Structures are given as C-alpha cells and as structure tokens.
C-alpha cells in the first residue's frame, strides 16, 4: 500500500515531465527553422544574428508563392473531399452495412496500411502507363484523398461511434426530412469529429511529398520545391515560408487558448462529464 502511495505521488510529475520532454523534442527542429529564418547564419543560427532579409527575398520570389498557393489548394480540396467521403462512409458503416460491416471496414481502412510511397508510385503507374495521363494537380488531390480518407474515417468513427442514432429517429418521427435531421441534429453533435478530420487531412495533404511528388509533374508545391532546392543546399527562404505558416498557426492556437482560458468557448470540452463514458 505504501509503495502504491509513492507511485501515485510520483505519477503526476513523471507524466508531465515526459510530456514536456516530448513536446520539446517535437518542437526543437521547428524552433531551429524559425531561428534560421531570421538570422544571417541560417544553417547554424546559434546565436542568431537577426535579419529580415530572408523575408524580403521571400516576398519577391514568385515560385515559392505559387508553390504555397498550390499546396493550399491541394490541402483544402483534399481535406474537404476526404472529410465528406469519410463522413458518408462512417454513417454507412454504422447504420447501413449490416452483416457486410467488416468487409467494407477492411476496404475503407486498407489505405492506412499501404505506404505513401506505394500509393504515389502505383497511382503514377496507373495514370502514366495505363491511362496515358501526365502529371496534374487533380490526380495529386485524388491520390492524397485516398490516403487522408482512411485517417478521416478513423477520427470520425471514434466520434460517431458514441453517437446515439435514436436522436435521428426521434427527429424523423417528428417529421424532419433526412436532410434536415442531418443538419439540425446530427451535424451539431458530431462537428468536432468532422472538424478534427478536416484539420488532420489538411495538414497531411498540405505538406505531402511522397504521394504528390510522383503525380504533380511540373506543378510546384512547397514540399516539391523544398526537395528540388536540396540539390543546391536548402534556401533560407523556405525556412522563412515555413516559419511564416507556423507563426500564423500559433497565433490561431493562442487565440483559442485565450478564449478557452476565459471560458468563452469550450470546443467540446464538458467539465461535468470529465470522467464519464458518454
């Protein structure tokens, strides 16, 4: 019993310590890139000699701007498409698949277990060899959607799994059409899952190299430009671009933090149900 008490007391600092170390490990390279983007000695910015020259050069570089635009386009369209398809698929699995559930589930999550390189290469073979299609943005978006779809399914399924479908039935009994039921009952309750899926898909597609690389042809995106720049050594402008994106995201997270701190928004967090199943 005594050892149990000590273990319990040690548990919290140990857990928090591991968390802090882990976040530090994850963010060290990000900080390295951030420091590199604002200093003259960008490959070893310790200590940094501050300069804004990199950002000025970035503002003039049209290739990187096009690349950012293409990456954003791939990210947003892939995320929309995969969230939509995954939402359909999850509802289908949970409500309509019946005894075929396992078969459909295997098909739907199979892309998770096929490496990105293989997805990219096999799509390249199919498009290039059998359809005689050159590289283009649309096939890159579609191939990314295959990969992201399964992740979205996983995320949405963990949310929808706990959803009580009797709520839908209730709405229908009271005369709501299926469409109205979805938008007025289901969607407001499951949106955190859909939103999470959208964000994750966007992030994965935005920076995907291994799928997009083989399907894009000459269309530049951020990762492919970075890959191309490697031949001559990485350019600090790319560091600046990445840091710019990061600063923007941290600003959004900072606003979220302040809003949650003041209790203005809760983002699905229900304090009174903290330790309960439903």
């Amino acid at each position: 019993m005594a050892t149990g008490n000590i273990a319990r007391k040690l548990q919290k600092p140990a857990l928090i310590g591991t968390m802090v170390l882990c976040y530090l490990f994850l963010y060290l390279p990000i900080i390295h890139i951030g420091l590199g983007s604002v200093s003259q000695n960008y490959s070893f910015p310790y200590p940094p000699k501050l300069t804004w020259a990199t950002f000025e050069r970035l503002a003039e570089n049209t290739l990187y701007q096009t690349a950012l635009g293409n990456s954003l386009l791939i990210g947003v369209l892939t995320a929309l498409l995969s969230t939509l398809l995954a939402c359909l698929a999850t509802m289908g699995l949970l409500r309509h698949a019946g005894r075929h559930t396992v078969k459909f589930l295997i098909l739907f999550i199979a892309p998770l277990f096929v490496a990105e390189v293989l997805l990219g290469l096999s799509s390249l073979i199919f498009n290039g060899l059998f359809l005689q299609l050159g590289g283009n943005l649309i096939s890159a978006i579609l191939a990314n959607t295959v990969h992201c779809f399964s992740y979205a399914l996983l995320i949405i399924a963990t949310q929808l799994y706990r959803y009580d479908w009797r709520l839908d039935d209730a709405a229908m009994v009271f005369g709501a059409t299926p469409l109205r039921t979805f938008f007025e009952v289901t969607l407001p309750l499951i949106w955190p899952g859909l939103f999470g899926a959208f964000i994750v898909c966007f992030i994965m597609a935005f920076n995907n190299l291994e799928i997009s690389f083989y399907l894009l042809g000459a269309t530049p995106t951020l990762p492919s430009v970075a890959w191309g720049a490697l031949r001559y050594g990485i350019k600090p402008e790319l560091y600046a671009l990445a840091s710019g994106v990061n600063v923007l995201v941290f600003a959004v997270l900072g606003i979220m933090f302040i809003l949650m701190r003041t209790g203005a928004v809760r983002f699905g967090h229900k304090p009174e149900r903290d330790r309960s199943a439903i």
Partner: protein
Amino acid sequence: MIGGLRMSRDPRAWIFLGVPSVFLVLLFVLPLVSMIVLSFWRTENYHIIQDWNVDNYHVVATAGAYVTFLIRSLVMAVIVSTLCVAIAWPVAYGVIVHGGRYKLLLSLGFAIPFLTGEVLRVIALQGLLGPLGLLNGVLMALGAAPLRFIMYTNIASAIGLVYLYLPIVVTVIYLSLLNFDMRLIDAARIFGAGPFRGFVEVTWPLNLFGSLIGFALCFVPCLSATLVPRFLGGPSGTLYGMALAQQFGESGTWALGAAMGVVLFLLSIAGVLLVFRFVDLRRSGFTGFGRS
C-alpha cells in the same frame, strides 16, 4: 433487418457505402493492381515491354543488396514502432489525465510540426544532430567529445523516424484513451489495485486496439521510409524504400521498382496481420458496430 436484403432495398445504403467504395476501387485498388501487372513486365532502356516474366522478383530475391536493405528496414521499423508506442503512452495518458480543458489544444500541438514539410524537418534534424549541429556544438563548446553515433548512422535514422511518426502514434493512443472510461481505473483502485497493476490489468488491455493501430501506422511508413535514411542514415543506412524510389527516379527501371513495391506491400500486410492476430476484440473493449 440485416444484410443484403436491407442493403438492396435501401437506396441510402448505396449512397453511403457505394460512393466511397467506388472511389476507393477506382483510385486505390486499380492502381495497386496495375502495379502488380507492371511487376511482371520488364523495362529496357527506359521503355516498358509487355513480356510476362518473373525476373524482377528473381532480382529482388537474389541481389544481396535488396535483401540487406529489406532486413535492415524491417528491424528499423520494428524498433522505431516499439519506441514510438512506449513514448506515446505516457504522453497521451498525461494529456488525458492532466490536460483538463486544454486537451484539444494539447492534442493539436502534436499536429503542428506536420505543417512544416517533412523535407525541412529532416534537414532541421540534420542541423541538430549532424557533425556541426546544435547538440554536438554544445558538447564541443563544453569540451566534451562529440557523439559520433548520432551522425549519419542508423541510430540517427531511428531518431529521425521516431521524430516523424511519434505524433501519429500519440494521436491514435490519445483517441483510444478519449473513448476509455477512466472510472474503470478508479474502480480498480477502490478494489485495492496499485497504479501499476491497474494499468497492466485494466488500462493497457482495454486500449490494446489503439496501441496496435498506432504501432501499425508507424510500422508501415517506417518500412518504406525514403527521406530519413537519405539525409540521416549515412553510407551504411540505405533502407528499402529509398532503393525502391530510386528505381522510379535515377535508374528508370520501373518494372523492377514495381516488383519491389509488391514485395513491400505484401510485407506490410503480413506485418499488420501478424500484429492484429494478438487482438482479442472483445477483451479490448470492442463491442461491435451495430448499436441500434
């Protein structure tokens, strides 16, 4: 009520399940099939010749280099995935238990590094671990010897792979724990189980499914890693995925590459099946899909 009858009668089922299925068959299954077809053809001077043979597989199996790369990749993938699960557990658990109302923010924090491209992050890791990197710079400034084992070795590759895939594993285990009823731990404690016993007998088995999915999602990309070994692995760090990608780039031997891809695909499937053989779904708290 169940099965084919209900499916054929209900048009909604065809929309909900049919649309994603058709999408996947067209854009996922057909490309994989075309890769398998290509692997039985051959390439000559950058041209593909439709001449059915198994030479590509013969090359993969007998050329010593590919077998070495494959074994090295397998060992690497197993070690990295195990490490990731071991690190991810305390972190995900910590976020769940001590995250309070900032849980969502903390879990989003794992996704943010992904916004910086893989290439840049690997280069940054190189900047941190390499001979002129921060870590060795600090060590040398303090008068200590630099750590040679983290410069362009397989250990550096392993650190890089853990770095790239840890966030995925943490997220999966986090999602699993999010759906886990924490009151069960309280119940175990009330009945006299210490924290360790509670974890081994309640928390771990009930979240085994999450751990295994996390393991698999780390294992598959590690097995085919291309970037990390190229930049961190050094001269004896070539992994299978890197050699595979070269067949489609520099060497232009697509058919051989396709055969290597098929081998990789089969190995990933075998690995995943092996992992999931350990799962007894009912023991892991899985209660089936149909709730109605």
